[in-house]
């Protein structure tokens, strides 16, 4: 029986409640993941027309450190750059993930070698939003300075480093403001879910938001998703330790947290003044909780940061795992709060400031690139001719590390660049290339290369590397002098 709506239009019974046709069809194909114990059943989604939200030169997928650097770098070169981010903020793990110790931009001698976007964004943070060693202390091995900065995660192996602790809210704010000033077109609350494949190129991507499913067409795409989502959606093979055969779910995952109401100076005075009592306290905590996180000073001494709890055996691309980690991390957060409030000097008035809105995933997929950064190469001090930046080495035993353009260029896609923790590396190299400053480094290079490719129509693989290096230097990026080997 037909009904009428308020404006008198006739509606079929079955359409009356939903306003659209019935749309449920049992699927017929066994899903790809069924072999691995994934879902057995499918439903069939009919084809549809998807509105084009906009057309752009450079589409950057993911607004973490790499994506921010990429979008700003591309826009500065005159490209129309669109940055799509699924959360309500920029900065990714450096803000929403509470990886707020920005480790690290100086080498073992104290020279700052990760510069460019890294310097620019940190310079914008106001007084009180950043706690880090002053430049004259970088590289210092003086005991008192090392002891002071170690509590703030700015000294490692008895060397003071440039690795400040920052206020994530200010970094969110300044990241958005910087993107606005550079002319980046920003879409928050938008999650890229698929790509438009055309041979070896991508014509754009599909994202979903409160407005439903829409497309963005682009000349070049930068995959800064952190999980290589764009390349994986395009169907190109990637390296992974968490999916497929041989997966060992290699890296721990966690939701870190911050507490307010802390008197961190009192806590440090207790640790250093009465090491025996501190040891006893930590031992007791370990016994009572079965696991004990160490607090670190935040950007102010009234804030404490807990980097863990590191939970292993979970995959950063499995939604059940991600959910389980959230639940367990917060349970541990509350157990720690109760213990520290009751027993730890300086923590009597602690309160829950924030559990990170973004889960701390260290690694999922890695790019198969034009060049793969591997441990043997950087241990040997290889200086790449196509260098796009220089990374501090993870140990003072090794020289500074030359980062090649090839590690951000996909082997099998012709108009895509990659920036962030998923660039082409082996696991040993990913262990430091995943850090925030290195993500700024590869992101900025990806943005510059993407703008050049969009402007000329050349494939990223075919770009003039000297011109790329010239543009990077123009944006303040440190590169080693031509012909020089990596310096210690």
């Amino acid at each position, binding site marked *: 029986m037909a009904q009428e709506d308020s404006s008198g239009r006739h509606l079929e019974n079955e359409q009356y409640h939903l306003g659209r046709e019935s749309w449920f069809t049992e699927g017929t194909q066994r899903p790809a993941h069924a072999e691995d114990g994934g879902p057995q059943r499918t439903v069939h989604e009919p084809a549809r027309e998807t509105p084009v939200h906009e057309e752009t030169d450079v589409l950057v997928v993911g607004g973490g450190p790499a994506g921010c650097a990429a979008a700003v770098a591309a826009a500065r070169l005159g490209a129309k750059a669109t940055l799509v981010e699924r959360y309500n903020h920029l900065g990714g793990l450096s803000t929403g993930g509470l990886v707020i110790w920005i480790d690290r931009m100086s080498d073992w001698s104290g020279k700052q070698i990760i510069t460019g976007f890294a310097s620019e964004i940190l310079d914008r943070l106001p007084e009180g939003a950043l706690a880090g060693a002053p430049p004259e202390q970088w590289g210092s091995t003086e005991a008192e300075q090392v002891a002071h900065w170690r509590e703030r995660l700015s000294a490692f192996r*008895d060397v003071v480093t440039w690795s400040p602790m920052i206020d994530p809210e200010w970094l969110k704010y300044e990241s958005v403001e910087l993107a606005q000033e550079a002319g980046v077109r920003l879409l928050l609350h938008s999650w890229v879910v698929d790509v438009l494949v055309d041979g070896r190129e991508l014509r754009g991507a599909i994202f979903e938001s409160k407005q439903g499913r829409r497309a963005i067409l682009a000349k070049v795409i930068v995959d800064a998703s952190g999980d290589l989502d764009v390349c994986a959606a395009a169907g190109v093979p990637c390296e992974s330790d968490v999916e497929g055969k041989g997966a060992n779910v*290699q890296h721990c995952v966690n939701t870190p947290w911050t507490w307010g109401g802390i008197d961190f100076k009192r806590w440090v005075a207790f640790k250093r003044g009465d090491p025996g009592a501190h040891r006893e306290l930590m031992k007791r905590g*370990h016994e009572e909780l079965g*696991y004990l996180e*160490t607090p670190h000073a935040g950007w102010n001494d009234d804030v404490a940061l807990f980097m863990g709890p*590191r939970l292993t055996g979970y995959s950063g691309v499995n939604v059940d795992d991600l959910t389980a980690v959230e639940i367990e991390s917060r349970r541990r957060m509350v157990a720690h709060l109760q213990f520290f409030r009751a027993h730890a000097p300086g923590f009597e008035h602690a309160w829950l400031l924030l559990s990170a809105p973004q889960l701390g995933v260290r690694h999922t997929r890695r790019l198969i690139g034009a060049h793969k950064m591997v441990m043997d190469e950087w241990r040997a001090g290889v200086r790449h001719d196509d260098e796009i930046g220089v990374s501090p080495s993870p*140990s003072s035993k090794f020289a500074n590390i030359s980062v090649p353009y090839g590690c951000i260029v996909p082997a099998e896609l012709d108009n895509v660049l990659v920036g962030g923790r998923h660039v082409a590396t082996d696991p*040993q190299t990913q*262990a430091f290339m995943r850090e925030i400053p290195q993500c700024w480094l590869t992101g900025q290079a990806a943005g510059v290369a993407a703008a050049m490719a969009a402007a000329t129509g050349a494939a990223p693989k075919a770009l003039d590397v000297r011109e790329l290096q010239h543009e990077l230097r123009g944006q303040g990026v440190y590169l080693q002098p031509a012909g020089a080997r990596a310096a210690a």
Partner: protein
Amino acid sequence: MTYVIGPACIGVKDLTCLDVCPVDCIHEVDEMLVIDPGECIDCALCEPVCPVDAITPGEGVPPEDREFIAINAAWGDGADEVNRLVAEYLARA
């Protein structure tokens, strides 16, 4: 806190962890392997490759194995000191 090798390694010394460590911070002593906390960069690569699950983050070492945090750290005082502490542990075990 850095990663710690616990008592499960004693008598096993599989050595796979040495291959995956980017900074060569895992060292062999008489009965087991230890991680030098002054060198470990917390990258977590060694943890899943251990065939006997001997490696845990420092904050997650089971309470009964906590002396292995000190045993690993004793690498800073030399292999002899580590061997002495492991021998003490074995004498009690």
